[in-house]
């Protein structure tokens, strides 16, 4: 009887910092086990070897920012049985989506002496704006244990267990004192997707939303609280929602509401 074929794993990069795919190499205790359970068929950050598609699971890091990448993601989709986006860039457009609120031509001429050499789209967009995505893993960066959970789930034919509730729940479960109530520190925890384990509050700082919006976030209420009770200026609220997940819809709408108020005021 022929040996059972190992599932083929591919890791793709678009506009990003490489941190989310590095999370896989940072699984020091699990890496050799993962490499034993799958065939690492395409992972240029780690290997020269390339095995042709199709692939059973594709992990996609990064956002779409160039015409070339918009074509390339369509090709990745065609070769992939399951396509999982990893991280804030692939899932929400990333920090580079801050251009979406500005004039990309002005940005290009600010950074590059010869802007004519640069080819870029005027918006940085998530993968799901271009192709069907089977699962989105949040975080800037992703949590490496959640990444192993996602791989394990797909290899075993089940849905990944990554709770969609807020960071607040994680704080309560860890017994971390609420930084907003106790210290008056502005915190995005009430509207931010869980996954980090309430990292920032456990280090005495407010959550800055790197896992993006939770399911059904009440951003308007949180912004009003910051504004009325913590004295946050409109510009501070705009900056807070305009972080690593600025182009995720709930965060985008809230930042635009306060930017508008700002320009009126």
């Amino acid at each position: 009887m022929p040996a059972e074929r190992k599932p083929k794993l591919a890791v793709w990069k678009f506009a990003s910092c490489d941190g989310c795919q590095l999370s896989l190499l940072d699984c020091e205790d699990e890496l050799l086990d993962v490499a034993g359970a799958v065939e690492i068929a395409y992972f240029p950050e780690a290997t020269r070897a390339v095995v042709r598609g199709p692939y059973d699971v594709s992990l996609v890091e990064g956002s779409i920012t160039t015409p070339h990448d918009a074509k390339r993601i369509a090709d990745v989709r065609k070769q992939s049985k399951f396509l999982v986006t990893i991280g804030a860039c692939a899932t929400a457009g990333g920090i580079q989506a801050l251009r979406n609120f500005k004039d990309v031509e002005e940005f290009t001429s600010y950074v590059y002496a010869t802007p004519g050499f640069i080819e870029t789209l005027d918006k940085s967009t998530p993968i799901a704006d271009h192709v069907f995505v089977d699962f989105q893993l949040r975080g800037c960066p992703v949590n490496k244990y959640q990444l192993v959970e996602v791989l394990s789930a797909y290899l075993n034919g089940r849905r990944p267990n990554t709770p969609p509730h807020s960071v607040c729940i994680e704080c309560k479960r860890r017994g971390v004192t609420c930084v907003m109530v106790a210290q008056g520190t502005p915190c995005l925890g009430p509207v931010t997707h869980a996954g980090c384990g309430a990292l920032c509050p456990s280090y005495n700082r407010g959550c800055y939303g790197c896992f993006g919006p939770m399911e059904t976030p009440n951003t308007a209420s949180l912004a009003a609280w910051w504004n009325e009770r913590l004295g946050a200026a409109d510009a501070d609220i705009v900056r807070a929602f305009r972080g690593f997940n600025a182009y995720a819809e709930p965060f985008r709408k809230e930042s635009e509401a306060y930017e508008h108020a700002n320009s009126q005021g």
Partner: protein
Amino acid sequence: MSTRTVKVDYLARVEGEGAVTVKIKNDKVTDVKLRIFEPPRFFEAFLRGRKYSEAPDITARICGICPIAYQMSSVHAMERIFGLQLTGQLRALRRLIYCGEWIESHVLHAYMLHAPDFLGYQDAIAMAADYPQVVKNGLKLKKVGNEIVTLLGGREIHPINVRVGGFYKVPSKREMDALGAKLREVRPIAEEFVRFAASLPFPAFEKDYEFVCLSHPDEYPFNEGRMVSSKGLDIDVSEYEMHLIEEHVKHSTALHAYRRGHGPYHVGPLARYNLEYAKLTPAVHALAKEVGLQPPVNNPFKSIVVRALETLYAVDEALRIIDQYEPPTKPAADYTVRAGTGWGVSEAPRGSLYHRYTVDSDGVILDAHISPPTAQNMKTIEDDLWHFAETALDLPDDQLTWQCEQAIRNYDPCISCSVHFLKLEVVRE
């Protein structure tokens, strides 16, 4: 006359996207182009209008491999504006978190990305089949580097605990002691890897480089000092842009750097080792002597041994800091925000990283400029390929291509970081 074309579509085992073309005609290299097609992300542009306090969190996202370097250069630049200089335990904790990043990044590169080249494996996982203990040891050592960053930073990638003035929270003595015990356990691995790296086969290739790094009077450099070179540069970091210039070249979204009036220069482990060797510890000196690698080292392929030696230094420096640790009374020093311009250089694992910011009286960033180490090395890498390919023309195409890739990996290039992927192409005409 034979015409050959060798082509590789994607340079592997580097961080980011790029391509190289080496053109060969009549057994002469006629052109080398290192092309970066990492899409531009415009960090410097969108930093304008952000608060000074956001710079360490935002700039960390330039590079997932060396976020600490970005956090360190940015906080030091801001502190220079506000007239703050950290001392005592807070200053020591900044060196400690940097030791963690050096260990994690150097071990990732040396064991998992670079060593397979020397031994003829496609990757570390294939290498693990024949060298299981080397790879397992590497993972163990890397893990402890990450544990330093995690204790001080909250997580290994994009840590959340670094701020202007210090930290949000400082570790307890007990947490530091537990970390010290782990470091002592892996220290023999760091020593053994120096010997292993030194035993690898090195191509005979040397070049006369201008090495550039940060230089501190008493310490091997991390966060403070003057910019010095092997050919007479000795400047305050505020004078950086007057001497070290960037030029935008057409085939790349990164910028090429050179020293005004001189030419391309070389930053990274080899530069630090050659210029700052005296400030390493006696234990590192003894091992360097044992393996016969004392400065000057002008063979870039031997950077893997220097990375191993710097890893050992980082382990020992981390232990020194941990052993002398007393929790500071406050996690961050006080400062007053004021308008001004500040400069910060720190030594990322792959070389000097420069930041400059101008902020207004509310601490809102008006102007930002960042010069990452890989961008500074880009021209030097091209020159290396030019000269190296000429010494290796009798190799078959696949071997020549592989060795050119290896020559690029000597620099541990982080192309995401050079704000900006690799495709290698050797064209023989």
